[in-house]
């Protein structure tokens, strides 16, 4: 497959991002007999974020049993061995245009314009940092960072300044607990997890465990400011219902508050959803740029690596259908509206022609609620009908609610349906 970059040969499929979604998409496509698949990744090795998380809990939805992050990556790469897939690391997608035309740059590819038949965007997510979150206070030479950055530092065996001994994690979702493990590995003591919400966003037992280890888990607590002295972090200032206080620490980790990595789409024909900050897709995972598909965490923050891999497999199957001429590259025109209780819905669009798609090919309708809801039933309202989508159940903030509906028919003449709670 060396010819992909070295000669004029164009890949049939360009997959951008070699994380769980991208690798699983490549596996699905190659298993279906599609050749000339090029996966590019901007990092120096494939695997995406799980690469930096050497603890269990990865790949569950995709494999039969959970792996460590690097273990899951190895599992995905093993599937691709001997397949017609080329993975090119240290290679960046610069821009994307109608065609699709993809401009890439890398030490082996050079600067070049590819015109593959299909592009799969699987670029994943990053965490919001202190600036994004507008947290006031002082600046520090080191000691204010995101979990991802700390995990990369650990993986690169970079030396942390000696004065960094204790840290506070802002956020209480899964990655905050992953941060505890990384911190322990780096011999940093975690003093507290700080969350604005009134409960821990990850699983409650993890919080019990953390507390058992002497880590304060403070919910309903706002991060006010960062106190520094002499260019070092001195404390984090927080406030809860009882008032304001300081928690002394040498480092502050901002975790979670995920943002899809879509900077290269600025000015491209791929429409971005203002709610998810990721590409707008339909149930076949087609974006608004014909021939360009998207899967995994780039769609919205944050899903587990296993879930992303499952989405990768689905987008692979969808692209295969497209390449075989069984499906159009253009996105469906109908769209979902959401009630105010719903934070976002993916897919945002719907193709009335594809109502009986094999579940291996389409993405289930996934949504997140803005606040915890209990004993509510989700319904789909079109101008003709009201279709129940769920039983009466709880919908929790930051937890996936995936609704698999296929036989709803079209969304009606209005080509618009409201997803709401009854």
């Amino acid at each position, binding site marked *: 497959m060396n010819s992909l970059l070295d000669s004029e040969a164009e890949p049939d499929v360009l997959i951008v991002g070699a994380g769980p979604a991208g690798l699983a998409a490549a596996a699905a496509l190659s298993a279906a007999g599609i050749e000339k698949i090029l996966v590019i990744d901007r990092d120096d090795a494939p695997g995406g974020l799980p690469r930096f998380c050497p603890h269990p809990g990865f790949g569950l939805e995709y494999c039969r049993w959970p792996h460590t992050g690097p273990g899951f990556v190895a599992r995905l790469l093993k599937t691709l061995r001997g397949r017609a897939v080329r993975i090119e690391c240290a290679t960046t997608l610069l821009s994307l245009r109608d065609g699709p035309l993809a401009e890439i740059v890398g030490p082996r590819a*050079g600067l070049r314009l590819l015109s593959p038949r299909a592009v799969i965007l699987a670029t994943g997510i*990053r965490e919001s940092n202190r600036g994004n979150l*507008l947290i006031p206070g002082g*600046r520090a*030479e080191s000691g204010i960072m995101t979990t991802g*950055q700390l995990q990369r530092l650990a993986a690169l065996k970079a030396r942390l300044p000696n004065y960094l001994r204790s840290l506070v994690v802002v956020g209480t979702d899964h990655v905050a607990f992953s941060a505890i493990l990384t911190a322990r590995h780096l011999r940093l003591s975690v003093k507290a997890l700080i969350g604005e919400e009134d409960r821990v966003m990850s699983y409650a037992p993890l919080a019990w465990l953390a507390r058992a280890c002497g880590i304060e888990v403070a919910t309903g607590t706002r991060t006010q400011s960062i106190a520094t002295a002499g260019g070092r972090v001195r404390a984090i200032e927080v406030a809860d219902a009882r008032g304001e206080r300081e928690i002394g620490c040498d480092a502050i980790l901002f975790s979670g508050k995920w943002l899809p990595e879509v900077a290269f789409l600025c000015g491209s024909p791929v429409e971005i959803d203002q709610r998810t900050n990721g590409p707008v897709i339909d149930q076949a995972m087609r974006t608004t740029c014909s021939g360009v598909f998207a899967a995994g965490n780039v769609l919205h923050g944050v899903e587990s690596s296993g879930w992303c891999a499952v989405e990768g497999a689905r987008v692979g199957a969808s692209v295969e259908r497209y390449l075989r001429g069984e499906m159009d590259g253009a996105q469906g025109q109908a769209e979902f509206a959401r009630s105010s209780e719903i934070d976002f819905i993916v897919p945002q669009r719907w193709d009335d022609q594809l109502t009986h798609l094999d579940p291996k090919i389409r993405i289930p309708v996934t949504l997140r609620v803005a606040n915890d809801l209990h004993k509510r039933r989700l319904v789909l309202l079109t101008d003709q009908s009201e279709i129940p989508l769920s039983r009466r159940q709880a919908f929790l903030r930051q937890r996936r609610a995936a609704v698999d509906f296929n036989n709803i028919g079209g969304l009606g003449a209005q080509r618009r349906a409201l997803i709401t709670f009854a």
Partner: protein
Amino acid sequence: MSGRCQVAIIGAGVVGAAIARDLSRYDLDTVLIEAHADPGEESSKGNSALMCSGVDVPAGTLERRLVQRGYARYRVEAPVLGLPIRKVGAILLAWTADEVAVLECELALGREHGFENIALLTADEIYRRWPNFAPGIACGLHLPDEAIVDPFSTVYAYCLDATENGAAFRRRWPVERVERNAAGWVLHNGGERIAASFVINAGGIRADLVDRMAGFQHFTIRPRRGQYLVLDKSARAIHDIIAMPTPLPGYRGILIAPTIFGNVLVGPTAENVEDREDRCVTAEGLAQLRQAMAKMVPKLADQPVNTIFAGMRPATEFSDYQIIPRYEDNWLTVAGIRSTGLSASLGIAEHVANLLIPRVFDAGRKEHATAIRVPDLSETSIRPWQDGARIASDPAYAEMLCHCERISLGEVRDALAAQLAPRTLSALKRRTRAMFGRCQGFYCGARLQSMFEAHEQSLGQRG
């Protein structure tokens, strides 16, 4: 690291570095002394990054004269040094009748002093050219010559130019004590000493403390903090002119300006603070910045913020610059360069050189100067990854390290290998722009840090 020289310049901010550069053109033994590990670590790194023509500086002041001269020189000399400059223009906005009157007066004054191309624009004209301004503007004063520059590379270029032309540079050399002797002064830092016939105090935010060490007490630094926020590059599609409210006496107000790196900068606030090190961002400050956006360009409110920071302006109780030659004492103070230091730097340097030569040193001008060039980090330059020939000759320019700013491994490697190499991670950031983007190091921070550390270690091994 003791030694002796003819001129010791205390402070390698933009002003001290510019002075060192100008003096390096003469047969003079000059040393530039910096307390921090890298040049430009204080006021020179936390400012609005504007190159002002001087039109909005009060006429008749030394500041006006030196800003004008600095601007004229920068336009000619910056391109030779590889430094970018983009004339984006500025607009002062008026909402009330009082403000309109102020702008009319500014227009008349400006025209009188030779700023021919400034113009009062009607609201219609403003909205036609910049449709994203909030409704309600009465008129605006357009200053087409105002420009944006790279403040970090400017200091680096001046220092590099000075050292390549013979000036010595001492980093991590905080002057702790000064002592007069028959030949001039001896500066102390721990056990090290530098003897100098003449001292130039360009101590910026601590210039008053340096003066006091020598027994001079003409002014006190009154640190004025300015908070800023930097919007992501997507904001640039909405806003591409330096916009500011009608100035109040002594305060220019919060401006919204494009940066040479392709972002939009909002700030500064103006707060007199006690502690000259207190570069904290506050909730109140951020609220003021958001208010300014809402008032001028409300569409910017939804734009992602990349980073927030605060700078410190070295103001004094006097409104004008405090450039005080004390010939009998072999001491020259260059202080109170409040907020126009970057614009005026080359004007100040020339002024200082003229004060010293030939009166203090009858030094001849060198016949040859070594030309230096620093990498152009501006968004509109041809980046190394865009240069096919460069990538072909060295693939390290095609391997991105910082994806947000598109900074390659090759550029970081070059910055670490360059003369006056950065000795802190934050200096490396300023030298390359890596980690300056929207992710602020989520992706590249660890790699950049490990590259930096490997380099520091190799320096350590070499001694």
